[in-house]
């Protein structure tokens, strides 16, 4: 578990000033999906990182400045792509519905 809080993942222990955080939650019919995989693709579509979601459906990346795509894979669901912009010193929150 990642210490999830209402409204987003806890940022305790993360130096947000130095990171370009991209994080969020994967849901299906409004319920968290704890067995999804979220892939971070760069501007050219190249894979950069992947994380499994937590039990509460949350995920987090430490990206660089710029545009990224989140591709979410889950059992019995089609992949879902979401474009996100990341910036050092900010947290981009993304909700993914599958």
């Amino acid at each position: 578990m990642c210490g999830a809080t209402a409204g987003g993942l806890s940022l305790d222990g993360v130096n947000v000033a130095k990171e370009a955080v991209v994080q969020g939650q994967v849901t299906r019919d409004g319920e968290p999906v704890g067995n999804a995989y979220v892939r971070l693709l760069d501007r050219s579509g190249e894979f950069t990182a992947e994380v499994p979601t937590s039990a509460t459906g949350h995920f987090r990346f430490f990206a660089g400045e710029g545009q990224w795509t989140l591709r979410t894979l889950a059992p019995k669901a089609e992949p879902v792509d979401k474009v996100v912009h990341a910036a050092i010193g900010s947290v981009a929150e993304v909700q993914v519905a599958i």
Partner: protein
Amino acid sequence: MSRADSLVSTQWVEDNLGADGVVLIEVDEDTTSYDKGHIKGAIKLDWTTDLQDQVRRDFVSKAQFEALLSERGVANDDTVVLYGGNNNWFAAYAYWYFKLYGHQDVKLMDGGRKKWELDSRELTDELPTRAATSYTAQEQDRSIRAFRDDAVAAIGVQNLIDVRSPDEYAGRLLAPAHLPQEQSQRAGHVPTSLNVPWSKNCNDDGTFKSDDDLKALYAEVGIDDSKDTIALCRIGERSSLTWFVLKELLGHQNVKNYDGSWTEYGSLVGVPIALGDEPGDA
């Protein structure tokens, strides 16, 4: 080696659950994921404690490896089937490690834990018990392990394949983007190394691409078949996956994994470093 010798499908694993002489082993970057559920009968190896010396920065010794596998109940003639999260990064690392110590019959489960989960196959929290064995390892096979001096000597001479993401290769990121970026060593890559991100070997579900696609991938980047090859990444696990592709799936000769990888190379004093998207000059 070939695909048939070194890779099994999730279906094969399901069909062979509990089979005599087959040991399933989960190895994950997130060492807690086994505890949250694993394939029935699988044992766990923790890459941070079981496979690393706890004092020196190196692998466990032959004697330690023998003690580890004996205690976990793995026999010399067992078929070891490895799987893990993160598209088998650490399972491929463990595969290479088993080969390094001379285990004969090792296989990867294609797609790893992710494929198993995406297939909606069953996981359990039941812990298996295995009787202790008396495991005997071979001396390390140095023909598949590169050290820092090998990496430096390979600049402009051998195929150096850097399998990190393009942003890490270029020096824009210091670590994979699911990890905090707080490292102190220099960014960039070994001059003349070609960037072939490990992910190009795999489909989205973590399974390996076909042999034809993989051959085309390495032909396109200009890997020279007549030369020896060293694969590297940040800490040697993603490059184990590329080592697996080149050596075990495609049958290239003389492929080494540089486990020191960028965390070592990028901290060395006086070695050349290239920045940006181009390989750079020797």
